[in-house]
């Protein structure tokens, strides 16, 4: 029974990982309708940033890397937006395929730059302990990821809700033409949106170095899960993403506890399909009268 209880914090921590990897995606998807398949490779870029910073920052690289990775991945995203994606607005399926091409190139580039084998990122010593929760061990690394996920959500929320830039961003989401007419530079808003969404992927990448492999294939391990969260959460809704991530994390944790890891993945997929039967547009939907 104690073990079963211990699945609760584990479910939360899986949810935090899911949230972290899906947050940037839900941001760009929701704000711009862009499905970025290269999101996984931006995560990878964040992880490699932490790896490179070790030479300079030593064992505190993870902490130092958070803002740097945000900037690095954000810059990558910005370049992608400027060079390609901006020609694709209103064609979400085409961006999906385009960014998949980008992800292939980035993966191979990582292989050529850093080599095919995984590299290691040493966690700072203050992240190596654990606390006892409900009779089980919850590593500090996991707590750190949860805190980071919370901080990112809070940051995004504050930004969208409280800053002027954020309000502009929401205006563009709700009515691009009207916003443009009202003097919002939509092009600049798009750049900024993509920068932030990709930057969040970089932050996720740094966090993932604490629990997973750091290698050229890193992105591919997370991308499908991230998409499931976005789909279940609803089109780019922050609330939806948070709830969906935690719910899927819990589901994953308990399903795996009672069955096994393979079956748990299949169960999660089945539940998402079933859920879309009830709520075809995910948890939260923006209402619209437009006839597509």
């Amino acid at each position: 029974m104690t073990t079963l209880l211990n699945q609760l914090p584990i479910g939360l921590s899986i949810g935090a990982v899911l949230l972290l990897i899906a947050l940037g995606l839900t941001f760009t998807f929701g704000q711009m309708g862009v499905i970025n398949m290269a999101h996984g490779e931006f995560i990878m870029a964040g992880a490699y940033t932490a790896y490179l910073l070790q030479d300079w920052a030593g064992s505190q690289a993870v902490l130092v890397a958070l803002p740097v990775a945000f900037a690095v991945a954000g810059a990558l995203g910005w370049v992608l937006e400027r060079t390609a994606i901006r020609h694709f607005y209103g064609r979400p399926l085409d961006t999906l395929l385009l960014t998949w091409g980008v992800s292939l190139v980035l993966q191979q580039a990582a292989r050529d730059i850093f080599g095919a084998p995984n590299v290691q990122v040493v966690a700072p010593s203050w992240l190596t302990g654990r606390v006892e929760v409900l009779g089980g061990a919850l590593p500090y690394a996991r707590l750190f990821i949860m805190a980071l996920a919370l901080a990112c959500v809070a940051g995004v929320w504050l930004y969208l809700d409280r800053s002027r830039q954020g309000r502009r961003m929401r205006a563009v989401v709700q009515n691009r033409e009207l916003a443009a007419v009202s003097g919002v530079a939509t092009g600049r808003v798009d750049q900024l949106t993509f920068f932030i969404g990709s930057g969040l992927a970089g932050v996720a990448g740094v966090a993932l170095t604490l629990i997973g492999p750091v290698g050229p294939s890193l992105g591919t391990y997370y991308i499908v899960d991230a998409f499931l969260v976005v789909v279940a959460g609803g089109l780019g809704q922050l609330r939806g993403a948070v709830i969906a991530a935690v719910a899927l994390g819990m589901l994953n944790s308990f399903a795996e506890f009672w069955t096994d890891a393979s079956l748990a993945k299949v169960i999660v997929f089945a539940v998402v399909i079933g859920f879309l039967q009830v709520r075809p547009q995910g948890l939260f939907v923006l209402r619209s009268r437009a006839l597509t």
Partner: protein
Amino acid sequence: MSDRLRGYALFASISLLLLVVAPLALPAFRLDELAKYLCFAIAALGIGLAWGQGGMLTLGQGVFFGLGGYAMAMYLKLHDAGGDLPDFMVWSGVEHLPALWKPFGNVGIALAAVVAVSVAIAVVLGVLVFRQRVRGAYFAILTQALAAAFVILLVGQQGLTGGTNGLTNFYDVFGRDPEAEGTQRTLYFVTAIVLGVLYLGARQLVKSRFGRLLVAVRDGEDRVRFLGYNPATVKTVTFAISAAMAGLAGALFVPVVGIISPSLLGVVPSLELVVAVAVGGRYALAGAVLGAVVMNYAKTSFSEQWAGGWLYLEGALFILVMTLAPKGAVGLYEQARDALARRRGVPAPAPTAPQEVAA
């Protein structure tokens, strides 16, 4: 009408090329490779129908390819085993033939299952998602997740499916040795003919009223409802047809290549099929066929020269096609043709610019 005559003449000459010239000119082993590409072309044809014509971006076509392939492979395995357990079950510790396998001992049932199972799954999925008006990006992501889940399921049920190894080592393909050159030649002909027949069928479908309706659904699904049609039905039927094509492709692939395994069915192979269709030209069925053959040929020959480079090339090619020529090679060809016609002073036919339905 001359266009039409010329069309038939071209189809006939291509048939000649594939059925007479290629078998004479190519060594057996290259012919076998071409047969493999043609299998992918059959699956790509289905994608061309579902995506190009119907607007359903299916990123899980590998699932149906796999269902067809496994149905065929299960029959071949049981046939080889001749009443005993297939070899992989022995080393997976399975003692009795699982109930799921039993019907596949019968060649008729197995061949029917190649199409029927794919169609059944596509119909169930189609009814579930299309009725709920799940579409666009949501549909794409769902089918992708389906491919991921399917592979995990296949790999996890090793005693039933052979796990990551898949099913391989067939000794007898309908009374012939699969490695013999004669068999490979026959298989090539069968594949080429199936592709030709399916192409003609798909083309007929596209030209029919149903095909027009499909394009209408792609460009304005909600509007179609107000014409008295249920778009969910139209989409489900089309999705099922494309699934059946993928199933057939998988079933042919098994004797041609001699193996079916989960590595052929996952997220990446499914996406690669879509890439091929996009590069060839998604709005024309011939573009799908062209793309599948050329991309797979390029992949093979490239990996013989510069292994890591293929990913760069595939990625870069794809980025270029999506940005500069979203209609693919066929689109470029049409552009060139129209430009040429303009220079000659002949008025070009009205431009047809399909627009994607926003999700």
